[in-house]
Structures are given as structure tokens and as C-alpha cells.
């Protein structure tokens, strides 16, 4: 039992000690990460099912993705994971200024990731390499529209290496429609991941503001630790997404 007089500083009313408060939070964030893994697993299972059913479609479609941009994004996210892990160390040791710098670098990496992603998405919308249901998709389900679309796109059409200008027109219509499935899976997986990066940026900004107010230190770093764990999970998902989408040979 603890009364208000001897209750430890910075510990909420319903916790006995700082350690109990920290452990409760840590248990909570790990449980949340469990639900996140299961949340993403549905899309990974969808990916597995379609790749299992149409391996040749995935092999062909993967070549529309720019491996260099995907690899660059992997490195950007890994760097951000490193700086936030360093940031947790800073918070634990009370190195407030270093924590500010690491939070800013992490945020910059997250923004960089989203800009590279936007560049990739923009290219796909321009070229029409979209899911089959999109009106500008060159993989549309309605075969009559597709031919016109491909004709309209044929001048501008190219993959990042400029290889498929002629190939798309010559593709078997049934095969071409199935390419839309790959891009459906691609946009769902990378889109959901991108939303997580955006949420991470909001959380990192919140950490940065709180740190500038001097709220973090050796006795109060739980928020930094927990958001870092979330950020590492976002990185973990991308570690699997990158080879599964970009590196099918």
C-alpha cells in the first residue's frame, strides 16, 4: 500500500512502483505488436496464395518494380531503426541533445521513405501498372478497354529498365489480367505498411516535442522505448516485403 505522500514521483496512482508501471507498458506494447503481426499476416497469406497459384505472373510482374528504389528504401528504414535504437540508449542515459538529433534523423528517414514510395507510386499511376479494377489500369478485367488503354499508353510505356514497351501488347489477355492481381497485392501490402510509417512519423514527432520540453530521462523513457519497438516492427515488415515483392527472379 502506498499513500500519496510516499508515492514515487512520475508513477501513476494505480502502480506500486516505477518498475511495475514500466513492465505493464512493455507488456502492453508487446501485445499490441502481436496483433500487428497478425493484422499483416492476412495480407501475407493472400500473397502466398496468389503466388502459389500464379508463380509465373508474380515472376513477370515483379520486374515492373524498381529494385534499386526498393533496396534504397530498405537501407533508409534500417538506418532509421538504428537511430531510434540509439535514441532509446540516449533516453536511458539522459542524453537529451543526442536524443533530439536521433529523433530528427529517424523522422527524416521516415519522410525519405515516404518520398521514395510516392515516387514509385507516381510512376505506377502514370504507366497504368495498377490493380485490375482501377480505371487507368492496363491490366483491366474488361478486355475491350484494355486494348485501347494499352494503345494509349504504348508511347509512354516502359518499366524502370525500359524493357516492356512491346511486351505488354503481346501478352496473352488472361495472363495480363492476372498481372492486376499482383499489383492489387502490392498496393495493399505497401499501402498498409506506408500507413504505419505515417503513424510512426506522428508518434516520432510527438516524442520530439516531448523531448524538447525535457520530459525524458533515465527515469522516464518508456514512451521512447515503446514507440521505438513499434518503429522496429514497421522495419521488420519491410524486411520481408522487400524480397517478396521486388526480388522475384
Amino acid at each position, binding site marked *: 500500500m502506498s499513500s500519496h505522500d510516499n508515492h514515487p514521483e512520475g508513477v501513476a496512482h494505480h502502480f506500486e512502483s516505477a518498475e511495475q508501471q514500466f513492465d505493464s507498458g512493455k507488456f502492453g506494447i508487446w501485445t499490441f505488436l502481436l496483433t500487428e503481426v497478425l493484422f499483416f499476416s492476412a495480407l501475407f497469406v493472400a500473397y502466398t496464395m496468389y503466388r502459389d497459384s500464379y508463380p509465373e505472373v508474380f515472376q513477370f510482374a515483379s520486374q515492373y518494380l524498381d529494385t534499386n528504389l526498393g533496396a534504397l528504401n530498405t537501407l533508409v528504414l534500417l538506418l532509421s531503426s*538504428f537511430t531510434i535504437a540509439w535514441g532509446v540508449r540516449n533516453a*536511458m542515459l539522459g542524453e537529451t541533445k543526442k536524443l533530439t538529433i536521433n529523433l530528427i534523423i529517424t523522422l527524416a528517414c521516415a519522410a525519405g521513405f515516404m518520398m521514395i514510395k510516392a515516387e514509385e507510386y507516381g510512376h505506377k499511376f502514370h504507366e497504368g501498372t495498377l490493380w485490375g479494377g482501377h480505371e487507368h489500369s492496363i491490366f483491366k478485367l474488361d478486355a475491350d478497354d484494355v486494348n485501347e488503354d494499352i494503345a494509349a499508353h504504348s508511347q509512354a510505356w516502359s518499366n524502370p529498365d525500359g524493357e516492356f514497351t512491346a511486351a505488354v501488347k503481346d501478352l496473352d489477355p488472361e495472363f495480363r489480367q492476372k498481372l492486376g492481381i499482383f499489383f492489387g497485392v502490392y498496393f495493399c501490402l505497401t499501402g498498409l505498411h506506408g500507413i504505419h510509417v505515417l503513424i510512426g512519423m506522428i508518434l516520432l514527432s510527438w516524442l520530439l516535442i516531448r523531448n524538447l520540453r525535457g520530459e525524458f530521462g533515465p527515469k522516464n523513457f518508456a514512451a521512447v522505448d515503446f514507440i521505438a519497438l513499434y518503429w522496429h516492427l514497421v522495419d521488420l515488415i519491410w524486411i520481408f516485403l522487400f524480397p517478396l515483392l521486388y526480388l522475384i527472379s
Partner: protein
Amino acid sequence: MSDHSHDSEGHIGHVLPLSLLLKVFGALVALTILTVMTGKADLHGADLAVAMIIATCKASLVCLFFMHLKYDRPFHGLIFLFSVMFVGLFLVFVTLDSEEYQGDIKDYKANEVLELQVGE
């Protein structure tokens, strides 16, 4: 359990040495370069397996060190392992079921062709 050289009185959690964080980051970058190289090479059908092994190694490094699981309470690692196990179950059961109705689909398509021919 590893050494707790940085643990001090009243400290919650475990402070990782910066040198260790740098080594882990270096390893992750090296593995990324490796996976891009193996992804571009022709490995005669082993591509997916190799890519997944490398990705699992990278994920393990992130979990053990960046996410502190090596030094954390084992229970937190257990929670995470459970989630991965259930993803495995999910995958296995859906994959087992995936070919279940292929015969019906083939029959349906065959009938459809027959009906079209009868219609003509």
C-alpha cells in the same frame, strides 16, 4: 544472458552499448546487399528460400538487439514467438485448403463450355 555492465541502481531496462548497435546496423546493411545480389542471380529455384532465410536473419537481429529481446524478460519474446507461430498456422491451413475445390472448378468450367456448345 549477457553481461549487464551498464545496469546501475534504479535503472529499468537494459542500455545497449553503441558499438553493439553499430555492429548490428552494419550486419543488417551487409545482409541487404547480399539479398539484392542473390535476388539478381539465378539460383535455380532456391531464390525464395534464400531470400527468406536472409530476411529471417535480418529480422532476428532487429528483434534480439534493436528490440532488446535478448536482454528483455523472456515472456515478451514468447509473446512475439506466439504471433509468428500463429502466422505459420494460418499459412499452413490456408495452403492445405487451397487446392480443395480445384476439381469442382474444372467441372464447372467444363460444363460451361458444354452449355455454350449446346446453346449454339
